């Protein structure tokens, strides 16, 4: 019986290959391709970066340079649930720091890191533009607004 995990992995690499072929040799397509690749894998492992570099006719250092320049790209696997606490000004003046501190305490994890069980990654993010609901955080695609620190344990328990 074929390994299920290997099958799905092979499928991802096939999709990546199709994405690269579509933009073969085009330097200006680098960011869209990297965004697509991160969408597939959740992060940009080294072998994926090598494939992109070869496909677009670039040096690996070009790809790595772009990957480390933009905060959206990550070289490490992310947790099952990604928490993004908005640190825009409107949220900050309404107490976003307290929310972030509470999450750190509750999850026992520092900013930008993933819990040892791989369940949560905690990020402080740039303005999400939902200033009317400040302070705001997102867990995956779900937005939680008008937060206070004491709401955090209850929200985390849902995941």
């Amino acid at each position, binding site marked *: 019986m074929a390994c299920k995990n290997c099958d799905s992995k092979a499928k991802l690499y096939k999709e990546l290959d199709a994405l690269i072929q579509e933009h073969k040799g085009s330097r200006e397509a680098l*960011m869209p391709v990297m965004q697509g690749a991160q969408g597939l894998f959740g992060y940009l492992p080294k072998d994926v970066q090598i494939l992109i570099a070869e496909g677009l006719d670039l040096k690996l250092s070009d790809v790595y340079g772009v990957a480390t320049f933009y905060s959206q790209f990550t070289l490490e696997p992310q947790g099952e649930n990604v928490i993004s606490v908005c640190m825009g*000004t*409107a949220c*900050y003046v309404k107490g976003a720091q307290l929310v972030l501190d509470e999450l750190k305490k509750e999850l026992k994890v520092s900013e930008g890191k993933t819990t040892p069980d791989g369940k949560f990654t905690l990020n402080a993010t*740039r303005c*999400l*533009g939902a200033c*009317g*609901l400040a302070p705001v955080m997102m867990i995956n695609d779900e937005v939680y607004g008008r937060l206070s620190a004491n709401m955090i344990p209850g929200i985390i328990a849902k995941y």
Partner: protein
Amino acid sequence: METFRSHVMICGGTGCHSSGSGDLIKAFEEQIKGNGLDKEVKVVRTGCFGLCEVGPIVVIYPEGAFYSRVKAEDVKEIVEEHLLKGRIVKHLLYHDSINENSGDIKSLNEVNFYKKQKRIALKNCGIIDPENIDEYLAFDGYKALTKVLTEMTPEEVIKTVKDSGLRGRGGAGFPTGLKWDFCYKAKGDKKYVLCNADEGDPGAFMDRSVLEGDPLAVIEAMTIAGYAIGSDQGFIYVRAEYPIAVQRLQHAIKQAREYGLLGKNILETGFDFDLEVRLGAGAFVCGEETALMRSIEGKRGEPRPRPPFPANQGLFEKPTLLNNVETYANITQIILNGADWFSAIGTEKSKGTKVFALGGKINNTGLVEIPMGMTLREVLFDVGGGIPNGKKFKAAQTGGPSGGCIPTSKLDIPIDYDSLVSIGSMMGSGGLIVMDEDNCMVDIARFFMEFIVEESCGKCAPCRIGTKRMKEILDRIVAGKGVEGDIEKLEELGNMLKESALCGLGQTAPNPVLSTIRYFRDEYEAHIKDKRCPAGVCKGLMRYTIIADKCKSCGICAKNCPVSCISGEKKVPYVIDQDKCIKCGQCMEKCPFGAIELK
């Protein structure tokens, strides 16, 4: 064409979407169908109404009933009462939309929040379905492009934009018509039209709302710009953090292509123009024009020295026109109504309107568009509804990390590009964050500097090193370790940075620090000399003290203190040795009598 007797407009902007407007749309559609009204009532998902504070917002026409903070469970009542029986559900209306004396509902223009606004860039937001090009066309959409392509020469278009006095809405306020003229005159076989939608200022969401509420206005304006400067290709560079805006833009581009309004031979005039959307990837510096162009080229978004200016050598080294979203959103109106109409609005040097995102400690959080020249006081207190919870206003911050804090004494200055610069702030893209007495200005300055340190691209030394040193000084001030001379050091470093940094990011980065020193020097001094945070925000400056009257001398605090700095004996209140205290808070947490306070 189908006609409906009532329209239910539900805000689908990010703010209302986040507070559940997606579910409301479904609930309305179900209830309307359930009551057999689906041939008579139409549900429309619109762009932002502006009053995000009371979202999700639902407005029902023809009455113009303005329902606020609508919940899914309210929908049944609204449909059965209002839509079926024609009785407006008054207890669900926005509080200011009912006339106190007569009990009648006010039209939207009479509501305080809207009364003093003038909507040009936001004209269609909250009025049309942004995903339906027919609605855009019905509201004068593509009339301006038709006029330009059939009646005007490129020179005439540029002259109109010049005469209107429109200045760049991205922050710096460069005259838009002049920019168009430079690009028009630049020599090159290929030219590009770009739209800067990399709205990175924290607390700013004007451009997002325009793209979500009226994407075709921007697309049409870019097409006009393409005709004016002689370009057939455009790019919109938009933040990846704005998924709804990206999706609506892409949808709008697709519809425009289907209608022959983008692509080859537009309106059969022989003019070709097409657009692509490019996503940013989370780098604030990419809002700077040369960095943005590098990013579109697929490189690290680092700025480069100017000249050469992008008008001559921009994207792929070709002549390039770059304007901000809100700037483009004014163009079609200027073409249709004429330069004189536009230049009659505003002040002598700042024409038209400006969109602001009101946020922070203000009652009416949301999006407002006001004529230039209105005073900050009017914006904050008349339109914005003042400060919540009876607190005192302390400062308003404009221009994000490039701007400054404006104190009470400057509330009566008119809002225009030059007045704001004269008081050490800047127009910026339009974020307007209000702070009250509970906010510490040193902490806010440190917050912006931290942002800049993270977002500095590192290419030039003044910005890379200077901002870091400034942040270190601010860090020690808020930690209670500030020393005499720190304020002067910040000023010296800040002024040096202004003069020597490579791009706009670094040159304006010291503004939040310099402006808070200018207007709130006493707060800095309190932190440094008295080791006290007047607003009670900076933890490093707070002290744990035992309230003698409440202390029962049980000794639990002393037992739990990890550094053994609490001493006392039976029947005598305990005391904390402030020199040894590490401010861990254990004592306060463990005290059974609430006898320890933090101040």
